[in-house]
């Protein structure tokens, strides 16, 4: 191929930090905010999303030569919907209480912009291996994003992590962290922190370059 995009390895790494779906691209915000009240639902959500993302990436990569431009979004969403239905039935069968907690957010994976954007940007143009690496990398990045938010919210909101009490019993639970406003506030502050760290690092790097 003459068109040299990022290789499979680069795409894999890209998904995790440089193009992290949660912090860099701000994609797939509904689950990011809705199910991060605790670690367990957050990680279940990540697993379901990862399954749908990787499977949909593989399928779109396989059928990429058959896609018609004006119908491609419809094909993507129908493919994703099929895999999400599988994930949803699986959760309802084996993790019933968890599927009740996640509620409508499992089917809402279908319209998770992250998956559609990966199908559109990457897998509908790339070969199977690259699509797979991209899907796995993006899923890991998504998982990292959700896990970080869920950690902050669960620690502050109920003093525990994965349901295990971590903070001393005297910790006053910040109830607001488990409610919708807490989700917005935590994500906003985490975004700002990452932006700030990036800025400080960039400034240091520039200072080194000018002094050298």
């Amino acid at each position: 191929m003459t068109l040299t995009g990022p290789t499979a390895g680069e795409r894999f790494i890209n998904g995790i930090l440089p193009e992290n779906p949660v912090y860099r691209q701000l994609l797939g915000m509904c689950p990011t905010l809705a199910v991060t009240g605790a670690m367990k639902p957050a990680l279940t959500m990540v697993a379901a999303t990862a399954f749908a993302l990787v499977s949909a990436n593989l399928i779109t990569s396989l059928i990429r030569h058959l896609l018609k431009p004006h119908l491609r979004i419809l094909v993507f969403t129908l493919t994703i919907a099929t895999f999400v239905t599988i994930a949803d039935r699986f959760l309802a069968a084996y993790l019933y209480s968890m599927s009740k907690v996640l509620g409508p957010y499992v089917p809402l994976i279908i319209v998770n912009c992250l998956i559609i954007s990966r199908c559109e940007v990457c897998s509908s143009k790339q070969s199977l291996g690259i699509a797979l690496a991209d899907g796995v990398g993006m899923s890991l990045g998504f998982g990292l994003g959700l896990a970080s938010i869920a950690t902050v919210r669960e620690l502050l909101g109920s003093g525990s992590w994965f349901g295990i009490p971590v903070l001393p019993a005297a910790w006053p639970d910040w109830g607001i962290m488990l409610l919708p406003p807490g989700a917005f506030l935590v994500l906003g502050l985490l975004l700002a922190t990452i932006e700030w760290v990036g800025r400080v690092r960039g400034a240091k790097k520039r200072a080194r370059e000018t002094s050298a």
Partner: protein
Amino acid sequence: MTMDSITLLIQIFVSAAIINNFVLHYFVGICPFLGVSRRVDTAFGMGCAVTFVISIASLLSWTLTYYILRPGAPLPAWLWRVAGGAESVTVDLSVLSYIVYIFVIAASVQFVEMYVRRFSPKLYKSFGVFLPLITTNCAILFTCLEILKQLQDPMRLWGLAEALTLGLGGGAGFTLAITVMAGIREELELRDVPRPLRGAGITLIVAGILAMACMGFAGVDKSIETTVQYLLH
């Protein structure tokens, strides 16, 4: 129409629009809420487009769910009996619902876009550009799923009016949230926001404060019930 059903309709509307606001309570439709909320007029246009599509999608999805997809729906049950299946079996096609809904949403967005472009160029100019984006707006699928949930429960079998009210209420809530947010962001442009917070950060924090404001309305639906009863007696 009885008094109870009117009360229920008002409750559904107020609940979807304000108390359990789609954006600020259920987090659906966050992408346009963050992305298209820089200016009040575009935000309002987006809100109108979403309300329009949600209403159409809720009508279609109620019809499909009631007659075809819900457990014990008439059409597949009839087909089942014609095909010679046993009477005692309840036909349940709700496993297909996600695929059907996403297809309905994509198709209705396509048709609405074509219709508006053909018959109302002015309207098309004001919100036509947002229409393709709406297919992936979670708020619409969320409405369909909520209707499915109500129809799966035989105790609260919703009618078309309830489904449409949910759609309109949700759309109104989305419009309200995105317009308020755009108004605040227009003001924020002129303020000295700390550098790392600029853009998405401050928007999310403002959204958090708006969500707290929405929480303040909790319990209003109960008082609506008493008010309506008081007014009608």
